[in-house]
């Protein structure tokens, strides 16, 4: 596992790394680049993602506001099906 991802995972799951001081100390002691250390310390997730050649925010919508059935012409049947599905 790459050092930066490993460090982020540890920060997420180690109870001893939930305070500002312990986080800063762990970042300082880690084997990641000084640029990445600064990005972590300043909590710059966007720039950290850029440095890892990825994007911080990616599209993640997973639920439609309307069921596709609602768009159909046979609304009576669709309503019935939607109700059954709930």
């Amino acid at each position, binding site marked *: 596992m790459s050092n930066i991802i490993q460090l982020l995972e540890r920060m997420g799951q180690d109870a001893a790394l939930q305070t500002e001081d312990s986080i800063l100390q762990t970042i300082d002691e880690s084997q990641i680049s000084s640029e990445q250390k600064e990005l972590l310390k300043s909590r710059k997730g966007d720039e950290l993602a850029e440095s890892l050649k990825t994007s911080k925010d990616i599209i*993640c919508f997973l639920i439609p506001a309307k069921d596709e059935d609602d768009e159909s012409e046979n609304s009576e049947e669709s309503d019935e099906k939607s109700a059954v599905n709930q």
Partner: protein
Amino acid sequence: MAGSLACVGIGMTLGAHICPLARSYIEQADVVFSGVSNGIVELWLQEMHGDVRSLQVYYDEGKSRHVTYREMVDAILAEVRQGKKVVGAFYGHPGVFAQAPHRSIEAARAEGFEAVMVPGISAEDCLIADLGIDPGQFGCQQFEASQFMFYQRRFDPSCYLILWQIGLAGDKSMARFATGKAHRQVLIELLAETYPLDHQVILYEAAVLPIDKVRKQSLALRELADAEIFMHTTLVIPPSEKMRPNPTILEKLAKLETAHRVDDTLIPEN
């Protein structure tokens, strides 16, 4: 070998929320599809498995998300049909406000494949912890924001109201990645039929990376249109009214209690 499908939740915060079973499914899979909200989280999944395929490729501005979700299901099922152990790893909980995991599991089971869902820590779970609210205290209703606008929902201002995907509020096209101030103004007008415009609401964003700061911004309902809203912003509306007693039910229950007491006095002692 028969294919199988596991849709697992990896929780909201990288490293913090994934459960041992979800991680094990990922590590033992033949192929992993990822539906997550952050590229760094995708990199984390790639560290767990050598064949992680992002579902991100199916989204496109101007393309109906109905089509996107169908394509996601098709891609997942195609691998299951080839006899592979397939995992869909989704941020948060794979069954909460997520159509593709539910549809994938339904389709796989309908074709005779084993399919399971492994729950994850959802955005709602984080919201409850971060905002310090208990949905049991006054009750809690939640809706997808656009659905809340399109349909005449009955909601109760004496409980919490949570509206998800507020950044897309009012999108009829199903093909945009964001709506704006004008759409939110329509939502404000709808909410103002029930809540005072100066009612304090909360904009919430969970931490996705351990370095992220949780957003919990209080503002008046009327200020919502101009607020900075992202894809992952959630609107939380605390109760504006006190819970009203239901005298009819209370009277019925009182009669029942009285009848029980009378019955008890009629039971002969041995």
